């Protein structure tokens, strides 16, 4: 019994005392302080009417979002609008990547495919996808098709480019290795080229995803009846800044979520990728 008592006494003595310095130095504490300061400044700026009535208070944004969850806006709840935007992205992104990634791989592997596709690609590459909005509406009307079209245009370039470069940057000696182990051309491609290019392809997908978000937003700002961009435009038209900022906040959250999904997929497919410490 005496031993246990001594042990506890020792543990208590060895514990670092909870000084103010220790609290102040703690990372999570500093994060919390920083966030609190941000919201405080925002709130004060809103109340002080720094942008006249253009800046909503944080709690107004939260209230607005909360009410949109249950009171439909143009026939859809908040989640309905989220799904509308997400759906357009998923469709466009999927179509584009399913075409662009294999095309990029083939271009890097086959001289003839390269000769045919590359000049066309180089011609269209520099044009920003948003420049296509007007012509897309002209061709496809103001419905879903034109929006998905813009997303396809926007995501096509990074997917193809990163797949292409992913293959070109594979260490050429690795092909020597597989040939020495008895591999033929098809093994070179399947066993070496593809796995080696996966990390680059995923990097391309991440970039394509963020481009997809700006594309869908722009398309919705121009003409839409649903979606997160629509929420923002409605907020503009109804002079409700809380709605505008609310829309922005939701976009940020959903985009972040999708990006995390792609990262998770990458971790699944490429378990060998060295983890770069984010801290």
């Amino acid at each position, binding site marked *: 019994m005496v031993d246990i008592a001594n042990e506890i006494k020792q543990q208590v003595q060895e514990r670092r005392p909870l000084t103010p310095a220790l609290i102040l130095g703690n990372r999570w504490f500093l994060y919390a302080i920083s966030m609190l300061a941000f919201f405080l400044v925002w709130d004060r700026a809103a109340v002080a009417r720094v942008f006249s009535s253009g800046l909503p208070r944080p709690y107004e944004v939260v209230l607005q979002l909360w009410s949109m969850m249950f009171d439909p806006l143009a026939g859809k709840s908040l989640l309905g609008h989220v799904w509308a935007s997400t759906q357009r992205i998923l469709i466009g992104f999927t179509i584009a990547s399913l075409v662009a990634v294999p095309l990029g791989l083939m271009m890097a592997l086959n001289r003839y495919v390269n000769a045919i596709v590359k000049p066309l690609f180089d011609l269209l590459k520099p044009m920003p996808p948003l420049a296509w909005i007007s012509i897309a509406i002209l061709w496809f009307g103001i419905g879903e098709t034109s929006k998905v079209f813009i997303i396809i245009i926007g995501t096509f370039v990074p997917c193809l480019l990163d797949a292409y470069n992913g293959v070109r940057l594979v*260490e050429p*000696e*690795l092909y*020597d*290795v*597989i*040939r*020495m*182990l*008895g*591999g033929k051309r098809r*093994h070179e491609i399947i*066993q*070496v080229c593809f*796995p*080696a290019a*996966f990390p680059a392809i995923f990097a391309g997908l991440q970039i394509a995803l963020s481009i997809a978000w700006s594309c869908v937003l722009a398309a919705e700002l121009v003409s839409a009846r649903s979606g997160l961009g629509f929420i923002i435009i409605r907020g503009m038209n109804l002079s409700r800044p809380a709605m505008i900022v609310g829309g922005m906040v939701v976009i940020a959250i959903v985009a972040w979520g999708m990006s995390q999904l792609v990262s998770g997929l990458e971790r699944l497919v*490429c*378990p*060998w990728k*060295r983890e770069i410490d984010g801290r």
Partner: protein
Amino acid sequence: MREERHSNPVKIVCEDITKVFIQKGKQRVHVLDHISLDVQENEFVVILGPGQSGKSTLLRIIAGLETPTEGHVLIDGQEVEGPGPERGLVFQGYMLFAWKTVMGNVEMGPKLRGVPKKERREIAAHYIHLVGLDGFEKHYPHQLSGGMKQRVGIARAYANNPKVMLLDEPFGQLDAQTRYFMEKETARIWETEKRTILFVTNNIDEAIYLADRIVTLEGKLPGRMHVAYRVDLPRPREHTDMAFLKLRHEITEASELTL
């Protein structure tokens, strides 16, 4: 100059190997000039030469990754026509498949030949054990040190039961301590599973430590055979042995003359 001995059967025959690279359609780089070399079964031959002496090119020709401009290579009497698992090649830069585990790398050769999973796992496990990497089967290359990566490279080549092992400056990227350790490991592995070995290096100590026979190339292009040395020292060898140091001195003197 031709080297021949008549006690063991001859495994590798290089006859008059000449290699000229044509760069950018115009420049001709003469890399090898009439190299002839015989290697006997289970002999450990080291090709020694400074950088840019054509020795890696010679090894690649023997491996089948390059074709000689003139001359040919025979292994067990058959001409080498392309790369293949009967010649195990260990690369200087490790060249492991980053997306495969140690086990995945070592079993790649048998996998390409269609060996069923259970059997090829056993084969791979045997060679992973031979190079001393038990317990690391599920590790990825980026989790291994340089010496360990190279051991995977050796196991990967050995797993195909090659007729000859070709090592292209395999320890060039390792620090001195690891290098010394890997030299000892190589000697041990060779003693355990005897194989004809052709080992390329620019390090004289390494050559004397490992070789039955050292073949030196001149220090400039085109690479020509210079001098050959028999190393009859008993194994395991000591770097501080008198005979070791004498041979080291002899080779150092001879090679300085050609630079």
